[in-house]
């Protein structure tokens, strides 16, 4: 698991044909469950699991158009903090 506090950012100019390879790359990465963003020998490796919060927003204001796609998720708490104990109800016997 990658350590915390990493950041990656990419910016480029594309057209509606050239954008497809980026969207496909993201789509495949989610399907594989492994998403790697690299730069200068550093990489953020993400393994989307559990619930993904998916947020699409489209706005058009006087010709200025924006489509934002946002994905959030929580990594497993136990992975980040192994001290989190889990609770168990014993079903073994009659109890008391």
């Amino acid at each position, binding site marked *: 698991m990658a350590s915390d506090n990493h950041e990656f950012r990419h910016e480029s100019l594309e057209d509606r044909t050239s954008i497809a390879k980026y969207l496909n790359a993201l789509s495949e990465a989610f399907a594989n469950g492994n998403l790697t963003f690299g730069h200068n020998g550093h990489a953020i490796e993400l393994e989307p699991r559990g619930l993904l919060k998916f947020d699409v927003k489209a706005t058009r204001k006087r010709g200025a158009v924006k489509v934002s796609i946002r994905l959030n998720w929580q990594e497993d708490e136990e992975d980040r903090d192994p001290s989190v*104990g889990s609770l168990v*109800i014993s*079903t073994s016997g009659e109890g008391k």
Partner: protein
Amino acid sequence: MPSRAIQENFRFLVLEVTKQIESTVQVVTTGDEALIDSVYLKDDYIDNLRGFIDAKCLTVIRDADEGDERTVELARAVDIVTNNLERMADFAVNILRQYKYVKDHAILRGYGLEPLFAEVLGALGKVSEAIFKADVNEALEICRSEFNLDEMYAERFHRVMSELRAGGEQVEDLVTTLFIVRYLERMGDSLLNIGEAIISLALHERLKIHQYWALEETLDVGRGEAKGLSLESIFETRSGCRIGRVRDHREGAEGNLVLFKEGQRDKLLEERAGILFWQERFPDLVPKILSWHEGEHHASLLLEYLSGQTFQQILLEGTSDELRAALQALGTTLRAIWEATRVDEPVQPGFLGQIAKRLRDVKKVHPGFGDDDQTIGALRVPAFADLLRRAEAIEAELPAPFSTFIHGDFNVDNIIFDPAQDRLHFIDLHRSRRFDYVQDVSVFMVSNFRLPVLETTIRRRLSAVILAVYRFVQTFAQEAGDTTFEARLTLGMVRSFTTSTRFVLDPSFARAMYLRARYLLERLLAHEGGDWSTFSMPTNVLRY
């Protein structure tokens, strides 16, 4: 204690109001009109007296040391009583104003007003003692005079009406008489306010007289014998019942705490039926009914007070050991109930129908929920309401294979754990019945989830409890051969996540719950046509 000045002026006020009313009786019964002017003149003085006491009381309330609630309560009661006394003096003046219009005094005297005045004066004589000694019994007597006055008024009212119907030349005098009697009846209203203010003071609680009497009747004590009972706290429930905690110091009662519930008759009948439902087979699980009293619309119930903490309190404030113990007791209790009451006949929980019934209330709080169909490119995103309709066919093929006793409203605050005895109790049993046990499980899980707490350690606790209960019930279901458990639990969770949003006002938290309901429903629909014994509920929705 309010200052001497307040006490002295208050006693003065009572005396002056009493004199005003005595003078009024004198005028009305003997025709001694010389007194009328002196009553008018006194009225300003009484107004000033009231203003003085009013101001002093407000100062006392404002300047009271923190924690000195007794002084504040007394000042408040004195203030309420003062204002009602002044109103009574005004009514006396109004009676005399009416008196001037009477032409034939024999008609007025024929109506026998003395007993009404006597009732008012008798009650007035008790006011000073009652308030400064905070004496409930005296206060009750004051309250009762309002009921006596009402009766006397009603009698005279009907007589005036029938005489008016008979016609004749006395119409004006009859109407005037009615006005005068009506002012005496209104004095009764003021006396009731006075009595109630003193009872509230004596019991440290705001209490209406009919609730106090319900308490008396339920406790089966005679008039004025409620001494030795003290009300420790009172609060209102969502269903409009009022609950009080009463300590019983009477002989033989050893200061036991009892729980007093008063409210709509129908609600309390359900509550009582729920308790009786459990009583026979699990007598220690539910509170004992000590007494029941039923009126036309209201009812009251006296219950054994169960010591311990609610599961919710333990979740939010308990130590890890306390939580572990409570959780284990929960598991042991549920398993015992389910095994002992299992009847192998299919039962249809109808979770989707439960959503449909409450969706309107959900939309009142969150208007966007339900009708949210969208398209993204070629993809059509159906509305939640459509998904619910599509799931009906699935639910129809998923009855529970057996029924058990269920609590019916299995929220974390309806479970009490007594660590001293390592024992669990159920309260609020108005929906207890034989049903699918999954109903209680899903309600319990979501009642943990929806607690409006964001603090990380508590959220982790909630997640751990929800997951532990899920795994525990999963094991039970496997052993019990309940092959559709996961699918039904998923429907139950959809139901509870959706309907609980009506109690969640934080829009982003409510949305998190709603989106979970949607997600679960879509996973269920994706499995349509498959073997339901291979379906498992995604557990990632259980954490926030």
